[in-house]
């Protein structure tokens, strides 16, 4: 699982700047040693400080600026099983994104493109075959089944009803605008 990328060197003592992709930037070091994509190179990470949305860290085996600069752009991964186990009805976004969305009859409706949270609960963004997206509340009623192993979710899109006032309807007719 991708947890960060090395943005560049910091100072002359071999420290690096890491752009962290974890919820708390400092957690890039919380899941044990990180490795490159192939797993051939592994580094223990010690966080020194944070600056401009990035973390300054020291990697084991990197002792000078030249070595740190040579790592620029390196993507840092941790094994999926090092992340803490989640509770019931809770999944990592990385596991949800990309799942096939099907209706209750098994008809494909698209793929999970993203999971948002705008303050009113988690919302799945489902991308259809034509590229059009629809948003769906991540509730037991709208998403009765999540099958990570099978790579799919079953969705039951809610019935859409419109609420418009009389004044809004009249304004609509006149100018195409809604309130």
């Amino acid at each position, binding site marked *: 699982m991708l947890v960060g990328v090395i943005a560049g060197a910091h100072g002359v003592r071999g420290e690096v700047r890491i752009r962290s992709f974890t919820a708390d930037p400092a957690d890039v070091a919380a899941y044990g040693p990180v490795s490159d994509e192939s797993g051939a190179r592994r580094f223990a990470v010690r966080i020194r400080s944070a600056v401009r949305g990035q973390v300054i860290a020291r990697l084991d085996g990197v002792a000078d600026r030249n070595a740190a600069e040579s790592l620029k752009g390196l993507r840092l991964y941790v094994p999926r099983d090092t992340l803490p186990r989640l509770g019931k009805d809770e999944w990592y976004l990385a596991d949800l994104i990309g799942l096939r969305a099907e209706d209750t009859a098994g008809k494909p409706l698209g793929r999970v493109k993203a999971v948002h949270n705008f303050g009113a609960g988690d919302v799945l963004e489902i991308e259809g075959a034509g590229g059009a997206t629809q948003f769906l509340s991540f509730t037991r009623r709208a998403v009765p089944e999540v099958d990570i192993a099978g790579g799919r979710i079953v969705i039951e899109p809610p019935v859409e*009803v419109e609420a418009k006032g009389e004044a809004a309807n009249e304004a609509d007719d006149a100018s195409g605008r809604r309130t």
Partner: protein
Amino acid sequence: MARSVWKGPFVDGYLLKKAEKSRSSGRNEIIKIWSRRSTILPQFVGLTFGVYNGHKFLPVLVTENMVGHKFGEFAPTRVFQGHSAADKSAKRAEA
């Protein structure tokens, strides 16, 4: 300046009627609304509204701690497309 308390919260009247109708129907409904200015009332708790953000209707599942806020606060009109956090999780709500 904050709204005077004696006026009470502002809400477009038709939302109340629609919410009542939706609740009594018992169906899995999303009420599409354009009224981002309306205050969320206790009567709306448990219902899902599709709040227009100028482009799409974003689902807003109303919970108790959202009462008193405006619908528009939960449907941002500008979406930041960043890298999603690797260790972030989503919890499926009961409703």
